[in-house]
Each structure stands twice: as structure tokens, then as C-alpha cells.
């Protein structure tokens, strides 16, 4: 039982949400109590769950969400530079997802409608402070900007699919979801 543990090198994992809804992160947590033992095997770098604000060298990067502003592009590049394996998690990272529904709209009209002419506004004005990252004209999937190693479909991908990906990588296998875990809703 209590044999001295040989310190195993943990898999270092970073996660981030770009233009996503956090549903994919919820699905990561939906592995439920398996997370309690997973933490013997992995450690978190930058993630919404930790207070590390910039990604350092990692074995695995999980990206939720597509690219909707310049800041997203910047964070994605930082992840690619630091992560040996980069995974596009969920519909938004893979093809833009629901936020990409805005891609056919004329942005200038919309901006004016939302921030200037909408009823109920006391006084309008388009937010334009330099602290706000520039929005992109369209929402882009992440593979348009960086090389992506694996794509995990679903909105969000089921927790069991995330679990399979992690355990395959931990065992040194090529991740293979197989039947039942690969779906798109």
C-alpha cells in the first residue's frame, strides 16, 4: 500500500477561453470526482481556474472559443509558442461556433444600434477606449492562425471525450475518441 512514491513528472496543462462561453471548461469539470485523482497526474498552468496570467512552457494547451478580437489572437499565439500539443476544444475553437453567426452582419450599423440608437439608453457612445482590444471584423477558427494538433468536436465536447483525450495523452497514446464520444451537438 504505502510504498514510497516515485515522483512522476506531471503533465503540465494550460487552458483558456477565447471567444467562448466557458461551456467547454464546464465540460472539463464534468469529469466530476475523476478530477480528484487526475490532479495526481497533471498540473495546471494558466487557466481560468488558477491565478497564472500568462502561459509558460506546457505539455498540453486546451483552447476553448474562436478569435473575435486582437487579444484572442495574442493569447492564442502565446499558447502555441508554449504548448507542445495544442487542442481546439469545441465548436467555437474549431469553426467559430455560434459567435461566428455575426460574420455576415455589417458591424458599423450594429455598433451604432447597440450603443447609440437602442431605446432606453440615457446617452449613447461607441466604446473606444484603448484598454479595449480591437474586435475583428469576423470571428475566426483558431486553425486559421496557428497549427492545431487535435480537434475535439462538440458544443461542448462530452466530459468523457475530454477524459479520453487526457488519459490517452498521459499514456503516451495518440488520442482516439472512438464510437460514441465523437458528436457535434
Amino acid at each position: 500500500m504505502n510504498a514510497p512514491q516515485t515522483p512522476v513528472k506531471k503533465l503540465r496543462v494550460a487552458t483558456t477561453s477565447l471567444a467562448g462561453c466557458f461551456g467547454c471548461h464546464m465540460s472539463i469539470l464534468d469529469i466530476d470526482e475523476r478530477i480528484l485523482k487526475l490532479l495526481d497526474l497533471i498540473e495546471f498552468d494558466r487557466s481560468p481556474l488558477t491565478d497564472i496570467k500568462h502561459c509558460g512552457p506546457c505539455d498540453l494547451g486546451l483552447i476553448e472559443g474562436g478569435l473575435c478580437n486582437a487579444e484572442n489572437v495574442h493569447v492564442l499565439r502565446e499558447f502555441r509558442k508554449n504548448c507542445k500539443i495544442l487542442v481546439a476544444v469545441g465548436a467555437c475553437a474549431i469553426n467559430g461556433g455560434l459567435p461566428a453567426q455575426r460574420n455576415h452582419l455589417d458591424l458599423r450599423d450594429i455598433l451604432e444600434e447597440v450603443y447609440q440608437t437602442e431605446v432606453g439608453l440615457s446617452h449613447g457612445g461607441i466604446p473606444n477606449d484603448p484598454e479595449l482590444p480591437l474586435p475583428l471584423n469576423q470571428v475566426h477558427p483558431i486553425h486559421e492562425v496557428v497549427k492545431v494538433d487535435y480537434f475535439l468536436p462538440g458544443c461542448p465536447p462530452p466530459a468523457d471525450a475530454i477524459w479520453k483525450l487526457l488519459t490517452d495523452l498521459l499514456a503516451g497514446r495518440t488520442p482516439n475518441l472512438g464510437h460514441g464520444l465523437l458528436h457535434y451537438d
Partner: protein
Amino acid sequence: MTFELETAISPEKLRRVAIDPVSRVEGHGKVTILLDDDNKVHQVRLHIVEFRGFEKFIQGRPYWEVPVMVQRLCGICPVSHHLAASKALDMMMGVKQLTPTAEKIRRLMHAGQILQSHALHFFHLSSPDLLFGFGSDVAARNIVGVIAAHPEIAKKGVLLRKYGQEVIRMTAGKRVHGTGSVPGGVNKSLSAEERAELLKDAYQMVAWSRDAVGLIRQLFEQNLTEYNRFGRFRSAGMCLVAADGSMDLYHGGLRARDADGNTMFDHFDYSRYWDVIGEDVKPWSYMKFPFFKSLGPEDGSYRVGPLTRVTHCDSIPTPLADKEREAFVAFDGGSSAGATLGYHWARMIEMLHAAECIKDLLHDDDIIGHDLMATGQRQERGVGVIEAPRGTLIHHYRVDENDQVIRANLIVSTTHNNQAMNTAVREVAKQYLDGVEITEGLLNHIEIAIRAFDPCLSCATHALGQMPLEVAIVGADGNVIDEATRDHRGLTRLVS
């Protein structure tokens, strides 16, 4: 006119410190602080830096798609959007009363949502600050650290969240982004097996939720002065209440009180919310600033969410949670009930209430009924309001004769709290940061104030806008740091 510490008089002379991204919250936000040479704080702002445009791209879609689309605003509280949209579209369909099965299945789904979201927020996101200390080691200050140091607390948190997610899965079809609620009712009820499965753990969840209330109470007792003072400010508030004034997170009329506790409106029919609420825009955030119209944009800000709900309701209709409510509002002469960190305590009382609701609903035979849909006389528009985990959530749609949505307005919980969160972080900046050397641990104090509100910054990014096409980012010294341009695909590139 602006709020204290909102805008520095000469920002170009000041040093900028940023918390970017704000972590252990849901969504994308950052805080900027401007300081002078003596580290005196001159400006503090919580910026919402992203926008996604849901209100716009819903337009033109058939209305029955809306409850499924809009929940993609938020993966933590998708059920809130799912149900607020369904309620708005019930009204549009002229359905005044759901079938008992539909109403109870929706209430069960909502209680599952409150339970899992509150558990996640308290245990996974906020408990590290409270258990380890506000300025504790950054490397351990997360759920992993809690699992290592307090495994029994962490395990309860993980399993409470799991149970809430299972309630959602069985009522909505999926843990995240289900499809169970539809305009006019629901598309499934529970099977006898599902009901039995959920009943197995229902009492355990009530017991663990009680333990959680005990834990936050104990933390308050141990740190009373600091907790009561932390980021404290006076504020008006708003929430839904039932016809008898008791807490109802699914349906009711709007109750608002000013900062002195005087009633401003009560049992107000939310289908005319715009008579009482206006919205303001500031150039430095994509999130709007709502206010009570009767007080105007300068004085009319208010807060929503657990703290307001627990202190504004006359009672909670489940016995254990109501006892805890009484204890909370009486604690330390009532002062904790006005503290920013009082949000956590109120949140755990609501989690207990949600667990009790789930247990009670599981004993009600209507949840295995088969009468799922109601019909009515079609209307042109509909408004749906629900108390989401973080506060009052408003959905408003107009639908044309082709069944297409032609107008949508959403005011999410976090948006109502925009000014309140900004005020709270400015209070914390005054209390902890002014005139001292800023450290990581001190900056975490700012984030703790934001976390108290459990902001869903993701929800708050729904408004779509576009900035001017060329923007220069100018540094404090007036020099251009960055310029942004767009390539032929419309992709912005930063060029230094």
C-alpha cells in the same frame, strides 16, 4: 459627472497597473489602476473587453431556435438563458399558465442550475481566497490547492456541482446546453427511474449545503472585522419576489429598494421593465451601465444577486434555508448582510434553498406527468425574467408574423452589477492599495471583490459593436505603443 475614482483628471501623468485577465471568474475582463508617483490611486476600472453580438444575430431566426441559441452566451448558467428565453416566448405565444408538469420540470432544472453554479462559484473559484487568505501564495490559490489542503471540503464541492449538473441533464437532456425547455412548455419530463436515481442523493445534498452555510459563517466569525469592511459600500438593490414577498428564483414581480432600505417599487410587472430601468454607456467598457430611471444614471445604480435576494425577500419558502436567512440578517447586528463578502454567505443559503427545492420537487408526482405543452393567443412580443444564479436576467423579444425574431434585448445579471462591481473594486483600492507598493497579493484583493459578485463576464459580452477601423494605442507618455490594422481577411494584426 462621474463616480469617485472612475476617471483621473490627468491620466497621462500616471502609472498603469493592469490585472489582465481577471482570473477565477467566468468570462473575459480586466482591471486597470492608475497611480501617481506616491502610489496614490487615481483611477480604477473594471473593463469588459469582449463582445459577441447575440442580440443581433438572433434577429431573423425562427423563434423556437432562440432558447437553444442564447444559452451559448454562458456555459455556467446556460439554463438561466434557456429558461428566460422560454418564458419570454411563452408570453409571445400567449401562454399564461404552463401545465403543472412543465412548470415543475422547469423549476427543477432551474434549481439544479442554482445548485451547480453556486457550488462551482464558491468551492472551485472563490474558496481558495477564503480558506488560504486574500494575499496567500499564488501557486496554491486555486481548486487544486483546496483539494490538497482541504480534501473533504473540495470533494463536497465537486459532488454538489455534479448533482446539480445531473438534475440539469435529466431535465434538459444534456449537462451543458440542453434542449428541454421550449416555448409553451417542455419536451420531456422525468421517467420513474430518473426520479429514483436523483432521489438517492437528494438528502445528502441538503446536508452538504447546510455544511457549506456553516463553513462561510465560520469564516465570517473568524475574520469578522475584515470581512464586514472589505469593499463595503451602500447600494440599492433589485430582485424578483413571489406574490407573498417570499423568495422565488423562477418567477415573480420586481422589488427594488434604495440604499436606505426604502421600497422604490414592489411586485412591479416585469413586462414593462423599461419604465423603471435605463442603460448608460461608457467608452471604456462593452458592458452597459443600467440604472433606476427615477434616480438617474448618476445615483440610480443598484446591485442584484444572492445578497439582494436574501435580504430583500420576506422569507424563503423552504424551512432550512429560511432559518439560515434569519440568522444571516441578524448576524453581527445585520452588518454582514450589507457586506460585499456577504454575497458568499447569501449564495450558500440559496444553494441550500435549491437543494431543498430539488428534494421537494422530486417527491411531486407532476414531474413524471405527460402533459407538457400549453397554447394561447399569439402576441407580438414577450419579456421573460428569471433570477439567474448571479441575479435578475431579462430577455425581451419581438417576433413577426413569419415567426422570425425581429428585435431582441437582453439585460444579464452581471450587467446590472456593473456599477456595483466598479464601486466595490474602487473601495478595495482605497482600503488596501492606496499609497503602498503594489504586490500580487494586494492585486488579488481587487479580484476577490469582483469574485464576490460571481460575475459572468461571458454573459456580459453579448452586445455586438465595432471599434473604428484603425486604432493607435497611445502610452501614458503620449507615444504610440501599438497600432492595429486589418488584413484582407478582416483579421486585425497588432504592429509594434
